């Protein structure tokens, strides 16, 4: 008898003490694709724009349209909850993919937004976070989607399907939350802009937004993204564009196959220095030039040229970070923290000033694997 009571108790407790399990009919919800958060300059309140998927009543053929709901308030979750007044059904966040934060909000802090997204049960922690490159985040929702009906799903498809080709990797909420916690390392968020394609406005990824702790302080340009990713060892694919200022007809594009970055940390006589060795496999993707880069000496020249170009770009980026912003976005401090915790304890407080004077050597080693399907430039008779 005792056994049965215990069994019933176990089953009963399992059922009653676990999370929510409400029966929710599919058609009683609106599927949310994503959210854009703005700050109203006049009132100082948050303007929330939520894109929902409105599926219309049609036989057999799904007829989907994007509807943007708006609300504003002094908090994030307040206006979101208010949205139920304007929509007839409950918003369902389980399929939301995108979170866009405007520059104004990010300048204040990204924390209130992240807090809501991480605390609420429904939004996933794998939502991708973007900073709007336009004045407001809402503008991005107003553009007409080119390929799919839902604006934010298109962004999600764009970044996930082409993940390896995208120059700036996307960052998910949980990754951002983890990064914020790493001492003295500052996050870079991808930025998204509106661009006109054949008269239609669409969204493109462009550049990065640098956070100082949780506040937006600066930007990475498109050209700075590649060296930044090389240091972060985050390059899976992409293009290296080599052009000669003196010779405008000399353009070569190299396609990256894979790349491996190794960062060596040296401590000698109290001086901290880093050696960054980057091994990259490339092939020639475009050869728009009169110079011979195919012969043995030509290949060597091309290799040197590419290495020099990347080295220069990388050093420029590091210098700009050291001198202008003084923010360690590369995670050098974290490398010391992981490899030499004792030293880190001593220098942690002064890291910002140490970083500004840090001696960093960058060595690229580029292997040109092949030249695509053809070896020589296409020849035209003289």
């Amino acid at each position, binding site marked *: 008898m005792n056994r049965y009571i215990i069994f019933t108790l176990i089953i009963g407790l399992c*059922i009653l003490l676990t999370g929510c399990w*409400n029966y*929710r009919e599919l058609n009683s919800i609106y599927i949310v694709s994503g959210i854009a958060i703005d700050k109203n300059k006049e009132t100082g309140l948050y303007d929330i724009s939520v894109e929902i998927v409105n599926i219309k009543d049609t036989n057999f053929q799904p007829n989907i349209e994007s509807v943007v709901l708006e609300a504003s308030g002094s908090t994030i979750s307040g206006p979101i909850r208010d949205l139920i007044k304007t929509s007839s059904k409950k918003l369902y966040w389980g399929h939301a993919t995108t979170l866009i934060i405007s520059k104004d909000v990010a300048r204040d802090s990204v924390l209130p937004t992240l807090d809501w997204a991480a605390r609420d049960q429904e939004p996933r922690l794998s939502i991708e976070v973007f900073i709007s490159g336009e004045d407001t985040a809402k503008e991005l929702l107003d553009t007409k989607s080119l390929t799919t009906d839902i604006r934010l799903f298109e962004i999600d498809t764009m970044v996930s399907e082409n993940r390896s080709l995208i120059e700036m990797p996307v960052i998910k909420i949980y990754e951002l939350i983890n990064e914020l916690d790493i001492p003295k390392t500052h996050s870079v968020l991808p930025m998204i802009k509106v661009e006109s394609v054949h008269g239609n406005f669409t969204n493109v990824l462009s550049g990065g937004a640098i956070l100082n702790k949780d506040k937006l302080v600066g930007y990475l340009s498109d050209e700075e993204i590649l060296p930044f990713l090389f240091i972060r060892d985050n390059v899976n694919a992409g293009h290296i564009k080599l052009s000669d200022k003196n010779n405008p007809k000399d353009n070569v594009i190299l396609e990256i196959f894979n790349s491996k970055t190794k960062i060596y940390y040296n401590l000698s006589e109290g001086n901290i220095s880093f050696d960054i060795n980057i091994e990259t496999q490339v092939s020639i993707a475009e050869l728009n030039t009169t110079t011979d880069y195919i012969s043995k000496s030509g290949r060597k020249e091309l290799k040197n040229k590419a290495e020099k170009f990347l080295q220069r770009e990388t050093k420029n980026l590091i210098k700009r970070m050291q001198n202008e912003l003084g923010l360690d976005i590369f995670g050098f401090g974290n490398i010391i923290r992981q490899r030499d915790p004792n030293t880190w304890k001593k220098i942690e407080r002064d890291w910002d000033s140490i970083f500004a004077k840090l001696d960093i050597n960058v060595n690229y080693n580029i292997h040109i694997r092949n030249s695509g399907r053809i070896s020589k430039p296409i020849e035209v008779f003289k």
Partner: protein
Amino acid sequence: MKDLNNYVISSSIEENIKMMKDIFNKDATLRFREFENQYNGLNCCVFFIDGMVDINMINENVLKPILDTKVILDGIDHIDYMKSHIIISSIVNTSYKISDIVSGIISGGTILFIDGNSKAMIIDTKGCKTRDIEEPPAEKVLRGPREGFTESLLTNLSLIRKRIQTKDLKFRYFTVGERTNTNICICYVEGLAKEEVLDTVIRKINEISTDGVLDIKYIQEFIDDNPFSIFETTTSTEKPDIVTGRLLEGRIAVLVDGSPAAMTAPSVFIEHMMASDDYYLNYFFATIGRIIRIIGFIASISIPALYLSLVSFHQEMIPAPLIMGIYSARQGVPFPTFLELFALLAVFEGLREAGTRVPSPIGESISIVGALVLGTAAVEARFVSAPMIIVVGLTAITGLALPSLSAVIIIIRGFLLILSAMLGFYGYIFGMIGLIIHLFNLRSLGVPFMDNLTSLRPQSLKDTMVRAPMWYMRYRPKFMSEDSKRSVDGGEKDE
């Protein structure tokens, strides 16, 4: 009811005729013929029941020899002389007892009374009409033997004997049913079947107390270890080759006169996933068949519950494009998903039931009406959503792969569906845990129902999800038989 003890066989033929007429009062099928030998003046009378006997046999082997004999029977015991010299029949008994006579005549024997003798002769003249040996419609095979059992016990036993020609094959008769007095036969191969299992079966059969036994299912229910379980822990088949295969694994078969199915026990769960084709086709192909049946079982009990859980509890688990498709299909459907699913499954079961009960030409039209007309019209009229038809269709198709479990599948499916409607995946998992605990609790004549499925030894798993090649099946299932090596002289060493 007349008490047979009140009657005694007299030496007068007239008395005996009167007595037999009295015993079989109001039974129009009792026939008798009085006759006299013209040479020796012997007065005889035969009794038999019309339809149970072979009339030609009586004419040729009983009447003709007696009428033709020129032997003067004088001063010798007529009955014993006739038994050994005149009657042509392989089975002849004599008895003074009226009860022997009655049971002999109702089982198709012919009773011979001879004037002046208070002993009767019981001659076996059984000649009942039986069905021809045909392929059982429920167990059709692609390749392999097509013989099926008939309603005649003796024919069935001969079908088994034909396949196992050894003196170790034993047939033991029992009589069950106080009114039907049905013959049942336990068969086993001595040396392979476990003694204790055999004893249990015999004990349980002797304990059966019932009016009548019409089919093997009666026996199955009486000897089931778990009478309240939805699973049957014995299996039945209409094919002698399957019975033979199981006898050779050390199982015991029970056959009932009048039933074209034989029961085999002990049985394990995985037997339900087997088909006789498995052993007659290439083993790779057979293995694929097994795996499909196992997936079919799991899918058939799970698909409705999982769909319901996904759609009404865990929308985050459906990929976004799919959820939009389901969403749009559900627009305008007035019923909750649970009701929709339950009703549609009920409709399907109704169609299935209707299809099995009506003659086959009408059965086809029922399926056409059900599948095409009802399904399409229901979706167009927005009674149900289109994905629901797919879900129910998949459930139905996968369920059809396992005919022996079809009833069980319906019950588990409904049970999981209700649990899922209350708790989503959580309820489904509860249901599955409960199901597995229940399955592992079952015993079939002392053998665990889920045996062989918990071991990792290749020899234990050789005939479960995979059907290993014949040369690899060197050992019989260990739990089942005494001597576990398959060949008589042992084969290789035990692993």
